[in-house]
């Protein structure tokens, strides 16, 4: 089955991983800007990172027929440094017309601090000003519930936002309902120990339906598994769910969400198949 991984940090992955993803049926991925494993010292460092995301990773993915998309921001962890964050935010517009850039992300909260919330709001301003889609990181573990509530407060206070163009990621059992009820998209991250397993993701689909829901692997610096979406596909099959439902979650939903971005120029592999059959 073809699938799209809507949230995977390929900069932390090897070229072999791109090949493995291609073999597993991945046809496209989106990579939000995130932490580099260490705090960066200057805005120039982010400038280089954005070039890596928009240029190098796109090429690396392309070698295996994978279509690579990206999101730009300063992540919540480094947003604690407000002056650096403002320099980075000021630089983002120059990249927004670059092919493959889908919007602003992953912005969010990490430890739910005032500085993080301040920079989150400034990112919302940027997104509104440039009519960008938004991808949001919610905190982990004991901070997730409060952080998600705070993020929803800030999003719902801003009447300029089109909620169908906002994805709130890393939802779990205690945060998924409010995100979906407020009209946002929700992402479930399959991640050992600190987030969600494929089986629990299937449970949440059974409980909340498949509308506006995505699954991703995160595939970052932590002990994550880049092939977690295929694990989810198998878990859905083992539970007896129809292929059409699985395809909706792993392929149709990400396409529907991303299609709201001007830079989403995805070429579906089915077209090639259809052409081959002519």
């Amino acid at each position, binding site marked *: 089955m073809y699938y799209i991984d809507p949230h995977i940090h390929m900069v932390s992955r090897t070229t072999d991983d791109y090949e493995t993803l291609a073999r597993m049926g991945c046809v496209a991925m989106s990579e939000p800007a995130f932490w580099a494993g260490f705090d960066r010292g200057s805005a120039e460092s982010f400038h280089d990172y954005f070039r890596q995301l928009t240029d190098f990773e796109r090429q690396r993915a392309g070698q295996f027929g994978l279509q690579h998309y990206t999101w730009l921001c300063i992540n919540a962890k480094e947003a604690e440094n407000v002056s650096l964050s403002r320099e980075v935010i000021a630089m983002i517009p120059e990249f927004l017309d670059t092919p493959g850039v889908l919007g602003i992300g992953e912005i969010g909260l990490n430890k*739910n601090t*005032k500085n993080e919330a301040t920079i989150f*709001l400034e990112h919302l301003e940027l997104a509104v000003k440039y009519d960008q889609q938004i991808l949001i990181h919610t905190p982990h573990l004991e901070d997730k519930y*409060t952080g998600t509530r*705070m993020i929803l407060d800030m999003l719902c206070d*801003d009447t300029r936002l089109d909620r169908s163009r906002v994805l709130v990621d890393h939802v779990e059992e205690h945060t998924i309902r409010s995100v979906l009820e407020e009209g946002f998209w929700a992402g479930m991250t399959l991640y050992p120990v600190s987030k969600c397993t494929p089986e629990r993701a299937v449970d949440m689909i059974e409980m909340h339906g498949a509308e506006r829901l995505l699954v991703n692997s995160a595939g970052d610096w932590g002990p994550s598994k880049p092939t977690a979406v295929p694990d989810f596909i198998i878990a859905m099959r083992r539970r007896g769910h129809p292929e059409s439902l699985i395809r909706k979650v792993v392929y149709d939903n990400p396409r529907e969400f991303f299609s709201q971005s001007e830079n989403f120029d995805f070429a579906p592999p089915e077209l090639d198949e259809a052409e081959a059959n002519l």
Partner: protein
Amino acid sequence: MPIPLDAPEVLDREFLLVRAKLLEIAASLDRIGRAEGQVEGDRRLQLIHDALDVLRQGESDRAEQIQMICSLSYDEQWQEKFDLLPR
């Protein structure tokens, strides 16, 4: 949404997995107990016991309840405290 498997089928599939997970929890608690030093009063131990209590209840949202036990509380006044009230 309809759930394709019925309850006996789910139990058939999950019993050995649940048994294995229960044994891991029991062995972890034993390991903590056997080791030197004190953990009484450690908040995390209380969280574990509160979560185990949830498992005994017959309600259907146990996973959500355990998530909430392991969550810090949300302060409705946070925007005021941070001086970030919407303009």
